[in-house]
């Protein structure tokens, strides 16, 4: 089985949302690609980073550790981390590891962005409304 080294492409979808499109395998070899993409995504002010897993066919425990690393960075900078395009199997793994508790999982990119718009709007409203 030929392995597919991870390629990660960053798109700034709109101001304050970056999408990291992941292509290939998320294993120990993916560290540089993943960290570089994260750095590129955050070189502009972003509130939300969406990890799009639609073209990822393999994630192992080393890959999970890398995602945990990204999640730790995101939490430290108060950036929301979302996930989309995970297969049922990897949704199960995200659930077992409790990653799903810390990053909302959406079926696809469109639904993630739509939901992020809604929650951003709600947060703005909340910020303005009750002063939190």
């Amino acid at each position: 089985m030929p392995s597919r080294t991870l390629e990660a492409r960053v798109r700034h979808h709109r101001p304050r949302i970056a999408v990291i499109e992941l292509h290939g395998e998320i294993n120990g070899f993916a560290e540089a690609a993943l960290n570089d993409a994260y750095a590129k995504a955050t070189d502009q002010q972003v509130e939300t980073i969406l990890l799009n897993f639609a073209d990822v066919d393999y994630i192992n425990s080393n890959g999970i550790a890398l995602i945990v690393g990204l999640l730790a960075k995101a939490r430290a900078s108060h950036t929301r981390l979302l996930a989309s395009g995970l297969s049922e199997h990897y949704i199960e793994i995200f659930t077992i590891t409790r990653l799903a508790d810390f990053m909302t999982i959406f079926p696809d990119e469109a639904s993630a962005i739509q939901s992020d718009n809604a929650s951003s709007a709600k947060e703005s409203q909340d910020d303005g409304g009750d002063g939190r």
Partner: protein
Amino acid sequence: MPLVSQNELIGVLNLGARMSEQDYSADDRGLLNTLASQAAPAVRVAQLVREQRERARERERIEQELRVARLIQQTLLPRNLPVLPGWNITPYYQPARAVGGDFYDFIPFPDGRLGVVIGDVTDKGVPAALVMATTRSILRTAAQEERSPGKTLERANDLLFPDIPEKMFVTCFYAILDPASGHLRYANAGHDLPYQRRLAGVTELRATGMPLGAMPGSRYEEKETILARGEHILLYSDGLVEAHNPSYAMFGFPRLETLMGQHADGATLIEFLLAQLNDFTGEGWEQEDDVTLVALQRLTAPGPSGNGHSPSPENQADEPDGGGYMRGGAWRLLNEWSFPSAPGNERLAIAAVNEALGDHLLSPRRREQLASAIAEATMNAMEHGNHYQPELPVMVEALVSDTAVAVRISDEGGLGEGAETPDNYEPPDLAAKLAGLQTPRGWGLFLIKHLVDEMRVSADEKRHTVELIMRLEEPREGEASDHAITHA
């Protein structure tokens, strides 16, 4: 005066001058002609008798040489077969008229393991027999000094090379069998590759190495396999595969491999192959080379000492004696593999097991769960057991019973090596990891535990083994969390 027989000059009558110093008369010449014509056939007959006697002496000398060669060879072949409970060992040896240099040998070790040798010297007659005798002694000595088949062949080559006649060498396959577990470690000095008849098909036992005596300082690759109960291997010499039929077609390796696949019973394998060889060559075949066969069969029912290498899945309840796993809810080895310890090779293990299991035993969801568990167990074996040393392989076996599949993953870590075990396992806590209180890593065992129905861990001095078990039936709701880690 020429002596001519059947228009062939066979001698000359040479006469000197007459004592009377007179010329030979016409009568004299007539008499000499008559004498020559009568003497020629007599001389011819005498010549033929002498040639015949010389040929008979030469034949006798060759026959005597062949008798000596045969005697040397037969004296040195094992007279008694090793008796291994739970095993059938069947050798067969038929020398060609010209006596090749085939041999086989069994070398028992005090710990119960058995060395098995098959070899072939590249020559015939007494020279081949002498080299065979020397090689056999050298191998026996080397086998006592070295407990690794590769090192044994290396040592034997070093000892043989200085003294072996030029242009002669010895092909030789050497394996060490652990009868209790069915584990076979082997190396090969250029001999025809033995076949293993598995329950799932026929595979070659392939390991590379130069023939003994061909080159100084040769190194021999070492491989290993496991014979499950009911499986057998066949060692053979080229006399079988290079046999020709009247149309000059060769018996050949593909035919042998096919026949191995057709015949599952190791006990009667040799009879079956000889019958096939007989059909192939036809009556009146003049055997061109020695035919040597050795079949090793692990019996389906364990013998008195058959304490087995049985997988320990949950059907131990079906097996009150803890063995004999071919019965009832018995386990069948589908296939096994050996992967070098290198990052990323866990994907090879997944692909191999997926192929062996096919897509009808487990649901797609459970196949994916098992695949991730295999990946994690293989990565642990490569990293913690073998420290990513590529020369240390991870062995993977796929087994199936009526109720479950099992995947066994072994490394060379042995006792106390594999870093993560159920005993020293700290469950990962994502919140602690995000807070920097735990390393981001350490998910492997946790994932396995949650993905398979049962995980068993065992270790001896040499190997650390993890068994992953998935029931064929989808667990009912509420059972899904009934995951267990068991220490064998």
